[in-house]
């Protein structure tokens, strides 16, 4: 998130850009935009609470009855609504109106796209099992892309336990990083709120069902 520093690393002259008639470049994401006309872009500064207030039944109807989430990236802080756009073999993918996507397995984040420093995929089979039991140990494996597009895989050993407010805590440590995910699970075993780690540079994201 420090564009100036990276750009400084090269002569500015190579950054010259201009304008063109490239129709493809100008085509916006009309389909998604149409769906989300009332909630255009996640305006900077809008909070998760404000988004939830705006999700009236009429607005929900515009999403065709798709399931909705409200998510907040912590640093830099921004919030957006997301709507379910598809499911593949147990992985559900949600999109923001400006086309960031988050994918979940049983409410556990397994992929992000469009945020930058994205999580390409995550093997969370053991975490899913341990979470059902509410305690235990689990090993996760995350894949991200390096600056030269190389695939970087990291393994984390995690302890799953309940805290005093009966939230489920997943404390993970790997060779380079440690992080702690928090899940609030309702009576039916559904995750209704969570705070999950994406990557070292992107940090945490909070996800709730409005």
């Amino acid at each position, binding site marked *: 998130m420090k564009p100036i520093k990276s750009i400084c690393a090269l002569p500015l002259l*190579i950054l010259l850009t201009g304008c063109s008639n490239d129709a493809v*470049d100008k085509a916006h994401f009309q389909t998604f935009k149409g769906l989300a006309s009332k909630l255009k872009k996640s305006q900077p500064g809008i909070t998760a609470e404000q988004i939830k207030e705006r999700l009236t039944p009429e607005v929900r109807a515009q999403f*065709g009855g798709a399931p909705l989430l409200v998510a907040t990236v912590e640093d830099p802080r921004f919030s957006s609504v997301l709507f379910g756009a*598809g499911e593949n073999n147990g992985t559900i993918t949600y999109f923001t109106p400006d086309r960031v996507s988050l994918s979940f*397995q049983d409410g556990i984040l397994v992929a992000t796209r469009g*945020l930058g420093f994205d999580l390409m995929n995550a*093997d969370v089979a053991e975490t899913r099992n341990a979470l059902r039991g509410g305690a235990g140990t689990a090993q996760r494996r995350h894949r991200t892309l390096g600056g030269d597009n190389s695939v970087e895989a990291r393994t984390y050993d995690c302890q799953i336990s309940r805290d005093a407010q009966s939230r489920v805590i997943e404390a993970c440590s790997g060779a380079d990083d440690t992080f702690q995910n928090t899940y609030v699970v309702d009576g039916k075993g559904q995750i209704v709120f969570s705070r999950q780690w994406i990557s070292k540079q992107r940090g945490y994201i909070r996800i709730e069902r409005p």
Partner: protein
Amino acid sequence: MTAAETAPHPQRDTYNVYGMPGLIDTPSALMAPDGELITTYSDFAGATRASLSFQIAPRLIGTFRYSSIDQFLSGGATTYDRSFDLRYQLLTEGRIRPAVAIGLQDFIGTSVYSGEYLVATKHLSPRLAVSGGIGWGRFASAGGFTNPLVSISEYFRHRPGGRRGSGGQIETQKFFRGDAALFGGLSYAVNDQLTLKMEYSSDAYDIAATTLNLFERKSPLNFGVDYKWGNSIHLQAHYLHGSEIGFTANLLTNPKRPANNGGAGSAPLPVKPRQNGIEAAQSWPPLVDSSQPMATQLTTLLATEGIELKAFDINGTRATVKIANKRYGARSEAIGRTMRALTHVLPHSVEHLTVIPIENGIPISKVTLARSDLEELEFAPNGITASFDRAVFDDAAQDRLTYDDTLSGLNWSIKPYVQGSYFDPENPVRFDFGIALAAQYEILPGLFVSGKVQQKLFGNRDESTRSDPSTLPRVRSDSNIYAREALTIPNLSLTYNFRPGTNLYGRVSVGYLESMFGGVSTELLWKPVRSPLALGVEINHVKQRDFDQKFGFRDYEVTMGHASLYYDFAQGYSAKIDAGRYLAGDWGGTVTLSRRFNNGWEVGAYATLTDVSFSDFGEGSFDKGIRVTVPLEHLIGKPSASTRDVLIQPILRDGGAHLSVKDRLHPIVRDYHANEMQGSWGRFWR
């Protein structure tokens, strides 16, 4: 290895005034991080040095340097000097063993700084590093003693003076000869930002101190402080030789660093599987109006991805699309996004998805994946590797689809431009700024008319009055005369790209091919889809254009061209060898060695030797240069297929000059072939 051996050493990060890892004047045995590009500007006692260093491989670093020394020439004129260094790390640092490196400084240029060294560096603690070495040439100009190599051979006793011919040759006859001297020093990292340095320098600065009296060398001891500002900038101050203050700034970048903002850009469409999960009572909103024809739906979906649908065909269980990728420097990302879009529109019966990328009107390759593999691997932990392994790469020369290819029509752009001329002693850096209107129209598949009009707004390239004598036809040495015209047509040509057969690619260009030459250029390339090897032939007949770069020609014309061999070694290293005839009618060859990173960064160096004698070539002896290619997407953090090229050509002369025709085939073709795409296949799923 223990943790201590692999721990990053703070001193790894500090550079000397020559832009190499080291202390102040003296080198160390350390290396920069692999791939690091270090730009250094250093100023001290009338000597200004600008260096570009590249960590070519983990144990090999090279530098190109352009320096000026005040009053160096008779009559008090400033001299400008170009030099090249190489350093190889013979031994990496171990728990007890020091790092040991051997280096050649200024081994090609005019030898103002020429010297060789063998140096060892050891970290006594993670913060404190000590270096010591023995040097020859410039490194033995103070405190010299009889060369210990004399015990091997008397050959080493005396170092020949002067230089060969007109400079620019490898000065092997000097290496490790003449007196030797010892040098060394310490660096101490106070914290992550601040490093203190002290050294004993065996550089006498003979000319600067003694002959020119630019400063007084009172002491061999130098002191320095290095302040690291963020991740990319080092600011250094030095107290040198007991009398002088000097300054150095280093600007660091590395192609392996994360793209700006980690590389964002809009998320791809998810795979739409043919069977939803058992609990899929949920109705997912359709992303596209399914009442429209499939091709229309696909065009809409792909347009949002920056991809143009050129043709579409379903044959039984097989669907094939031709696409033009307008957005993704990582070609695999264009293929991956197209395939995911296909899952949203195709009937369930279609199992095999084939994508044929089109560039410049011709199909470049054919990538096929099973739809069930896409469904299975989208979120699979091994999905990146497995999807590459299961993808089938084929040649696309013979594909005829039932739907006609759509033409790309008219594309135009208005962009500002910058043009530089470098290394003229009167003014080493000159720039022109202006605006350029470019347009391209596809008449038939592969047949393009394209042109560019350029208007200079301001600049000083026209101020060069230099006219070097040349015994060759003046094919490049009049570039400053060409630069005097403000409104020009840099190119206006008709180009036909075609596929003459399997693994073959052809190009014919006719017209004003580049700003100084027009005529006919023909090219044939052989490049199998999965091969690291490619062979090409290019034959051109060109005539020199008028200085005004409009429609007229001058008298000089030549038939020239090359046979080329391209080979991609592992890990991005590649070589290109051209043999043939150059613009001035001289015969010879060019060797280009490059390192290309999987995100499109490329750093390469080339040298051309022809039958023009070194003395006829003039200053520099032969043509050589360095090219750095920067992918725009790495800087802006959004997908972009644009790149910027920076060519550093120390001396532009008439020998060994290539024609600068655009749309050469190999760079376009290789990008969509298996070798290139494998390295960036992670982007298939982004």
